[in-house]
């Protein structure tokens, strides 16, 4: 696999850091080279948070990417900040529950997913990030749904949060399904 | 008395006072009448009497006692000015089985190293600190210290220390006694045999507290610096009694079981 980079961005508390870690961890389990780089400092405390996950079959040079292959934008400021820098043939998963206007994406492949609503239906607002990640898996095809489930499970288990594995699995699945709808919506 | 009589007499005599084992056969480089020498000897006597020469590590300050490593026959660490409490902390934490003492002067303990000394005390660090308060900086030429008395003339307070410019003499022992960390804090003097005996008892007690893992102990000494005070040694002793003790009263300040 050529180097594939993803920026996950949202406000603090939406689980962007974890989402990026799951991409990196899953990639590692798949035998790929990976890097994960967070934004850090005061902006994380209640402001926007973002991180960059790169997966690659070759040694990764720069862990910083100015033009990511894909973006998961969980709120509007994130889309505005990173949307225009996504590669022209890149993918943007955007949270259509919070974002109406996504004109900044231009001709890029943008997949709107109403992650808040889906998470609400699942009965847990904390899993919006997993809904989006499920969608990302479907659209990018870089890491399979089952691999991501495994990566997520490993990370949650290591941090003693194994009781949330089930709900997060469901969220990944729902997001994966929803992306099919989203893809249809964006191509209309 | 004839020579023979003296010789016979001497044979019946027992040595009652001599240099302690824990001191090397080295001449101190302190000025005549300086109390550092007495305090050094008392610490060495305490080490001998407690049988801890082989397990004690001393830390020396920068200043007049910088040669502590030469005079004491024990392992000694020579840290930076002000850092003695922190260095003693590091050594003790790394090797809790050792008896570690911090030897500190006014500048070291009460000025440039106040942060380090205060926090070591507050943590109840299991070390023993000897704080030599001679109300000025001796080594560098008799400058004002935070411990300098109001009105006292030093080379950097030639018109006398003014409270307006420099505040009041810092009472480190009383200040630290306000904290919950320390176990034993006492202030001693060494200008006469009676007080020397008491000071030595305090040193031994402070060491014992550490050896029993009871926490932080501090012995402050009111110490004479005849040269920088511009006095002869007897006058300097007198000054401690009449002036210094007024500001820094002698005795135990706290003792927690």
């Amino acid at each position, binding site marked *: 696999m050529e180097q594939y980079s993803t920026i996950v961005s949202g406000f603090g508390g939406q689980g962007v850091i974890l989402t990026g870690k799951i991409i990196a961890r899953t990639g590692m389990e798949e035998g790929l080279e990976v890097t994960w780089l967070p934004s850090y400092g005061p902006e994380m405390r209640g402001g926007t948070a973002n991180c960059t996950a790169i997966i690659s079959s070759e040694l990764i040079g720069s862990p910083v990417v100015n033009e990511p292959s894909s973006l998961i934008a969980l709120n509007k400021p994130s889309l505005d900040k990173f949307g225009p820098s996504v590669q022209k043939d890149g993918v943007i998963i955007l949270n259509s529950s919070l974002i109406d206007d996504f004109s900044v994406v231009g001709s890029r492949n943008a997949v709107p997913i109403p992650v808040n609503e889906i998470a609400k239906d699942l009965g847990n607002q904390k899993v919006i990030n997993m809904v989006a990640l499920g969608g990302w898996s479907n659209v990018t095809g870089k890491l399979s749904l089952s691999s991501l489930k495994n990566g997520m499970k490993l990370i949650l288990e290591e941090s003693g949060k194994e009781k949330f594995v089930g709900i997060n699995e469901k969220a990944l699945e729902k997001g994966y399904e929803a992306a099919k709808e989203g893809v249809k919506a964006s191509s209309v | *008395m004839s020579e023979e*009589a003296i010789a016979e*007499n*001497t044979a*019946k*005599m*027992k*040595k*009652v*006072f*001599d*240099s302690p084992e824990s*001191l090397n056969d080295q*001449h*101190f480089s*302190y*000025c*005549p*009448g*300086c*109390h*550092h*020498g*007495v305090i050094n*000897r008392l610490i060495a006597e305490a080490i001998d009497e407690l049988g801890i020469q082989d397990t004690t590590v001393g830390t020396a300050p920068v200043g007049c006692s910088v040669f502590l490593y030469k005079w004491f026959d024990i392992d000694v660490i020579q840290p930076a000015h002000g850092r003695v409490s922190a260095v003693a902390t590091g050594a003790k934490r790394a090797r809790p089985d050792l008896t570690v003492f911090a030897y500190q002067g006014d500048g070291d303990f009460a000025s440039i190293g106040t942060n380090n000394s205060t926090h070591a005390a507050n943590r109840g660090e299991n070390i023993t600190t000897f704080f030599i308060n001679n109300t000025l900086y001796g080594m560098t030429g008799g400058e004002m210290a935070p411990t300098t008395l109001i009105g006292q003339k030093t080379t950097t307070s030639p018109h006398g220390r003014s409270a307006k410019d420099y505040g009041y003499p810092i009472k480190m022992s009383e200040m630290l006694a306000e904290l919950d960390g320390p176990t034993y804090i006492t202030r001693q003097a*060494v*200008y*006469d*045999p009676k007080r*020397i*005996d008491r000071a030595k008892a305090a040193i031994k007690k402070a060491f014992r507290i550490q050896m029993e893992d009871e926490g932080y102990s501090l012995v402050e000494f009111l110490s004479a610096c*005849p040269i920088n005070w511009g006095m*002869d*040694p*007897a006058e300097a*002793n007198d000054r401690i009694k009449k002036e210094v003790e007024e500001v820094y009263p002698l005795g135990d300040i706290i003792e927690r079981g």
Partner: protein
Amino acid sequence: MSRGKVEIDDDRCKGCGLCIEACPQDVLEFSDDFNSSGYNYVTPENPEDCIGCGFCGKVCPDVAITVYKLQKEGV
């Protein structure tokens, strides 16, 4: 016969005189000589009056003094 004996290491003594002040028996005095460092050292002028109390040694900042005390018979 004196009850005590005091020895002063001339070379270590810096002539501060604190021992002279501390001695209850007026045993000690400044000598007429100077040691190799140039200090006017202290010497026992009246050794027969020494009671071996050790005060001089205790106050000496230079560990220059050794004190002996006569032991009671049978001890």
